[in-house]
Structures are given as structure tokens and as C-alpha cells.
């Protein structure tokens, strides 16, 4: 199980407090679909994904990105028990959505990159390290119930 030090928790929560979840969610999901186009396979009913600008402006992408990142916010409230917090979502992603857990790792890294672009110097190597630990923990928790 992942253990976060007090410093790591602070690094995560202090940055999270300044994140516009709606905007960042849309950006994260959008960039995932642009940078790793094969991830579009889960979103056939999202309409126009034909170019980077189409993807980033797509209202379904923005809405779904907000949903995903809001859920990520729940992780931050439960950093000591990610597996418990994501048990139901893990079952959903396996049994209903059939998402390869590799996609959780890809999205986590895209999120880290977005935080870097928003926070610049504030996103120091040690702040990044705390976030890498969190996104890895979330990816593992979401994959935990797969069978």
C-alpha cells in the first residue's frame, strides 16, 4: 500500500486547492486523446475528434474530463486508502468499461504535465515526485479489482 509523508500530502493538497477542476479535467482528457490517439477508442460517441482543436473544444470531452478529475479529487481526500476509495470505480472500469489500466498511467502522466504548465517553478522536482506517487497510486487502485 502506498504511504504518503506529511510533506507529500501537503505538496498535493496545496496545489490541488488552486486547480480549476473543470478546466484542468477537460485539458487532461483532451491532451490524452491528442497525444495518444488510440485512447479515442473509448469515445466513439463523442462526436468530432478529428483534430487537436476539435478535441480540445469538444463539449463532451470537457464534460467527461471534469467528471474524471472530480473523481481524482476524491483520491486526494483518501490518500491513505486509495484502494478502498476506488474499489467500485475499479470494478466499473473492468467489468463495464473494459479499459486497459495502462490508460490510467497515461492519463496520470498527462495530468502531471498539465500541472507543470500551470504552476511552472512552483512545480518543483519534489512536488512532482509527490504527484507521481499519487497518480501511480490512483492507477494501481483503479486496476486493483481487475480480473
Amino acid at each position, binding site marked *: 500500500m502506498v504511504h504518503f509523508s506529511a510533506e507529500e500530502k501537503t505538496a498535493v493538497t496545496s496545489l490541488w486547492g488552486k486547480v480549476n477542476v473543470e478546466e484542468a479535467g477537460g485539458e487532461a482528457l*483532451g*491532451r490524452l486523446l*491528442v*497525444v495518444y490517439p488510440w485512447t479515442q477508442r473509448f469515445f466513439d460517441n463523442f462526436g468530432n475528434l478529428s483534430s*487537436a482543436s476539435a*478535441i*480540445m473544444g469538444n463539449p463532451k470531452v470537457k464534460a467527461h474530463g471534469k467528471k474524471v478529475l472530480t473523481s481524482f479529487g476524491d483520491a486526494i481526500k483518501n490518500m491513505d486508502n486509495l484502494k478502498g476509495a476506488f474499489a467500485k470505480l475499479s470494478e466499473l472500469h473492468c467489468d463495464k468499461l473494459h479499459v486497459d489500466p495502462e490508460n490510467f498511467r497515461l492519463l496520470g*502522466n498527462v495530468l*502531471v*504535465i*498539465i500541472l*507543470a*504548465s*500551470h*504552476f*511552472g*517553478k512552483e*512545480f518543483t*522536482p*519534489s512536488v*512532482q*515526485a509527490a504527484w*507521481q506517487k499519487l497518480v501511480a497510486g490512483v492507477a494501481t487502485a483503479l486496476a486493483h479489482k481487475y480480473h
Partner: protein
Amino acid sequence: MVLSPADKTNIKTTWDKLGGHAGEYGGEALERTFTSFPTTKTYFPHFDLSPGSAQVKAHGKKVADALTTAVAHMDDLPKALSALSDLHAYKLRVDPVNFKLLSHCLLVTLACHHPAEFTPAVHASLDKFFSTVSTVLTSKYR
């Protein structure tokens, strides 16, 4: 995976805008890699890896210079990076997984310092570029 003409333009344009800071960014990317992914430190037992290390900065510049060469020779990376490819295959033998980790930290570093340049399309092109360079550097492994 192929670098399109648009990718090459994105990469060249972005690299030119780094304004001589490429060496510094190389060092920062290494520091980020060591901090976020401690297993990568196993390749540098002979280095001082503490923050601000002169060895890490120097090594970061080496990496950045090699990437600058790669940017200038995107139409023939295997030839331009042949010596480095030999080095990584026969001497350094860095496990291929680590190229992804450093590539990610290079993207993080560039996003930190040049957020305005780092559009989704540029992000995609750079990710492809680092992935292509990594493939060339591991191409002679077996």
C-alpha cells in the same frame, strides 16, 4: 510511428525557442527523473546526486546537446545517433523502461518553462520525438 512534417516543424520551432537554456533543462529533467523515479539512480552510483550537483548539470547538458543534434537531423536519426546508440547498447545498457521516464520528465520541464509554447499539438510532437529518439538509442540492444 513516423514524425510527420508538422511534427518536425513543431519540434524545430520549439527547440529554437528554448533560447540557449536547453543544457539547463537537461539537468533539470535529470533531477526530476531521479527525484520522481528513484530506481533511475541505480545507473549513477558514481555521481553526486544531491540537489544542485555539478555532475548532474554537466550530464544534463550532454543529454541536451545530443537532443539538439537529433533535432537537426530528424530525417536521419539512426545515422546521426549511431554512436550514442552503440554506447547505450554495448556499454551503458540502460533498461529501455528508463527512456520513457526521462522523456516524461523532459516534457514536464519544458511545460514548466514554456507553457505558452506547449500546446496539445506541440506536446504530441515532442512526445513522439522523444519516443523516436529512445527507439533509436535502444535499437541495437539485441
